[in-house]
């Protein structure tokens, strides 16, 4: 099943259980120390420092704590977690065991995207094997005080459940809606217990960092974005797929690797990400420039940018949880704006107003969904206004 993949960190060699062994040897404080010096940040997209999250969860006082693996990979254009789970489960699950050990959780939960139901049996079998090999369950590796087990829960297809508080809400059996914060899950998460929610890729990076050290990890990537990133690359290119590249790689370099020709635009970070035109192809992937959860969609010169934008906005109109005003209605208004542009029935003043509305949505929506949904609207209109207007026989600046 495993394809021949090569990469700096995740796709380098790893033997199941090694990370757990090493973690138990060096102890909690050293794990946190290595993580801190690795500067590992959350790979889901938000980029919260993993060491801080685990420290906060470890420091929270509670009889019970949880580690949740966010495998609700729902961002349009991303499929890297699928690769990790199916081809590198040892990394993900070892990472969870190490996490559970570090924060003091006895239970880990994988929140698996509903569409990934087909993986369930394979993953369950894998976990069963881990139990048999004493890598899960009571007294892991014979250490008397460390018990940890993992269960898998399936999502039901809502995009918003990738947001950590909505995910927890869904885990508790409620409607997938984001919670008010503060408090944060590290204090009050699943079942009101301190909970660390980590992306699949974040967890998969942990065993390598524990074994090879934080300093080794920072040798890859840039100063502010250490290590590597899995990119799910799709669209107009000859070699789409999942690639592990160091942070700091430019858009142009990515396009070269996947053999993309005549590229006009690259949507980075999925529907909620930003759209980069040719003039910005030298920008770097990284938290200091263009942060991304890994979705890269390439569009060549034959693509209609307005059509692409419409597709994204339709997605958000449907996937907003419907809870807060800016996201629920705001996205509808942005989509209506796109339709007006499509028909050529608009005023510049109104489109300007919609861009302002988008900026309000970015700061006033309740959760990351509404805060990021106007990104593509704003960046596509900004970067491709000539195309969008010229094609419709209008040559005026917005």
């Amino acid at each position: 099943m495993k394809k021949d993949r090569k990469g700096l960190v995740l796709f380098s060699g790893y033997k199941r259980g090694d990370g757990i062994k090493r973690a138990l040897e060096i102890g909690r404080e050293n794990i946190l120390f290595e993580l801190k010096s690795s500067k590992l940040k959350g790979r889901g997209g938000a980029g919260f420092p993993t060491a801080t999250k685990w420290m906060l969860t470890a420091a929270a006082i509670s009889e019970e704590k949880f580690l949740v693996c966010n495998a609700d990979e729902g961002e349009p254009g991303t499929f890297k977690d699928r690769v990790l789970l199916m081809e590198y489960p040892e990394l993900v699950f070892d990472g969870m065991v190490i996490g559970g050990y570090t924060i003091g959780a006895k239970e880990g939960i994988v929140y698996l995207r509903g569409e990934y139901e087909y993986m369930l049996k394979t993953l369950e079998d894998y976990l069963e094997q881990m139990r048999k090999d004493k890598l899960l369950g009571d007294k892991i590796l014979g250490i008397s005080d460390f018990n940890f087990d993992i269960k898998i829960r399936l999502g039901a297809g809502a995009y918003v459940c990738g947001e950590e508080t909505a995910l927890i809400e869904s885990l508790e059996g409620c409607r997938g809606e984001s919670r008010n914060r503060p408090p944060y899950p590290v204090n009050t998460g699943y079942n009101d217990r301190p909970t660390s929610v980590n992306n699949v890729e974040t967890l998969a990076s942990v065993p390598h960092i524990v074994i090879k050290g934080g300093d080794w990890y920072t040798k890859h990537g840039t100063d502010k974005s250490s290590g590597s990133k899995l990119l799910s690359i799709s669209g107009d290119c000859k070699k789409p797929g999942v690639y592990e590249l160091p942070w700091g790689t430019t858009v142009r370099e990515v396009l070269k690797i996947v053999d993309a020709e005549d590229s006009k635009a690259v949507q980075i970070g999925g529907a909620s990400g930003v759209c980069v035109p040719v003039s910005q192809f030298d920008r770097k992937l990284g938290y200091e420039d263009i942060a991304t959860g890994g979705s890269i969609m390439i569009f060549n010169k034959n693509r209609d940018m307005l059509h692409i934008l419409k597709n994204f906005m339709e997605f958000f109109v449907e996937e907003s949880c419907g809870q807060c005003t800016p996201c629920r209605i705001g996205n509808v208004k942005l989509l209506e704006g796109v339709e007006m542009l499509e028909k050529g029935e608009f005023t510049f003043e109104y489109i300007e107003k919609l861009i302002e509305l988008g900026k309000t949505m970015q700061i006033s929506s309740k959760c990351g969904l509404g805060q990021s949904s106007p990104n593509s609207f704003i960046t596509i209109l900004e970067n491709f206004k000539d195309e969008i207007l010229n094609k419709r026989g209008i040559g005026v600046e917005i």
Partner: protein
Amino acid sequence: MKKDKTSRTPVSQRAFEVEKPTDTNTIGGTITIEINGEKTIVPLGTTILDACKQKNIHIPTLCHHEDLCVAGVCRVCSVEVEGFRTLQAACAFPITSPIKIKTSTPLVRKARRHIIDLMLSEHYGECYSCIRNQNCELQDLAQEYGVDGYTFGHVTKPTYEKDTSSYSVIRDMSKCVLCKRCVRTCIDLQEVGVLEAIDRGDKTHISTFMEKPLSDVVCINCGQCINRCPTAALHANDPSDEIWNAIDDPKKHVVIQTAPSPRAAIGECFGLAPGQSMTMELNTALKRIGFDGVFDTNFTADLTIFEEGTELIIRLKKALVDKDTSVKLPQFTSCSPGWVKYIEHFYPEYLDNLSTAKSPQQMFGAIFKTFYAQQKGIDPKDIVSVAVMPCSAKKFECNRPEMASSGYKDVDYGLTTRELAKMIKEAGINLPEMPKSHFDSPFGDASGAGLIFGATGGVMEAALRSVIEFVTGNKTEDIFANANIMPVRGFEGVKYVELPIAAVGPVPEILKHLVPSWDFLKGATLKVAVAHGTANAKKIMEDIKAGGKFSECHFIEFMACPGGCIGGGGQPIPTTPEIRKKRAEAIYAEDESLVMRKSHDNPHVIKIYEEFFKEGPCGHLSHKLLHTHYTKRGKFIA
């Protein structure tokens, strides 16, 4: 951080409470924060909204309601907090660190305006044709933020069909702005859980189980959702047009009874501060409108005390003297129709505990079409009986098939306080300016005991004022100063009181045929309880189910609405704990101002037993007209 474990609201719809320090003088008990550059000290865990309130800084809100848990969904209360990339919802942000807040920056003002514009774009209808015109929080917001047009358009066609299936509550979801106050009211405040958001994204809407009409789900008609709806998405089923028709029809004799709670609250609809009773002014206004008879529901409240009290005595005697094990105790009150429907749905196995006595509204209805019709020589079919109630569930109650023992519909129309205020205005009357007048004969003015039915604990207090005197032969004043039975008063969710009966007196004449002697009560302890709001009722019911202390009670008063009838679903909007307190104070003050304060002192009640219900309380005729039985409904409706 902790959450209320009993709450059923999804976590996403409530903020966590920070455990507040018991002593704010200790280190860490308070935090110094900065609001708009000014330093202020607040207790740990205070929300930004409350902190601003303390500094007299107004922050607009919509989904926030004092009675409800926090949702943080409308986002109109957004403020800037230094260090945060995004704006924060002031209502949902507990202060736990020395933050710096800005409440009126260009970003904040623009965001609020955008949010209001967005809500208006999906809010169907125009203000001048709206039942909540001039009493609408969305309208207020639009005005506050100088909205002078529809920036992002405006729906011109209704988005949802109106649900008019319920006798009590009409749902017009085209006007809904999804603040979810109704959801939180239903599931958290009342623990009924009829309403919830369904679907996602722009299709999100508030609906019922399987999107059934409201009449086909477990709605108890309490109308608390109406009182908390900021717009007219929820409103009561208004019968005022039919009532006008009846008034205008010379062949019809239209009588109206007024309950105490509307009288304590209707002034609010005429610009008065909460807590001013308008009883006598209302009498005049109703006569001027054209009602042919204006009567006091307290008369039948006094009658209820006789009927329900006698029923309790019969139950106690059967249980204690006759050792009849089939007798159900504790006896539950049945005057709150919201509570009655609640027990029918949620605890049908306890229906036999419910007093068979009808509510005062229904008793009066039955009397109008029998005794009153006889006295006046009017054909009962020509009598139209209207009841002014603080309640939306009364509309359902008067339409129950059980409620026609007179051969006619006992009460034709249940009218809420709000609807009556509208009728009075329509008639060109300014209520506070009306001269005072008394109720019409033959029922006249009633006792203060009937009056206090309006506040939680009132039925119990009224009953105890009579029971104490009936059983012990002493005056209530000898035990409770001024006959104010304070232990059953107040807004505590569940109240429990024990009254030891040390000595007994002679049995009064009216009850002699039922109990020859009180000896069986000598040395006993009367245990009573009071609950208001169905969430509190649920606590008692669960305790009874588990065989707890409430199962040992003899008599329990249940009211469906928080605060009792004064907080009913037909009362003026808005409602807050403070407003309900003021209304209750008005009722208790009016009670104290009366000479006659006990139901058994009401001469009109004594007279009706002499002239009409000749077999006395719980006699044959009173059973026919004043008592009823309810329906086991259960939670699952086909």
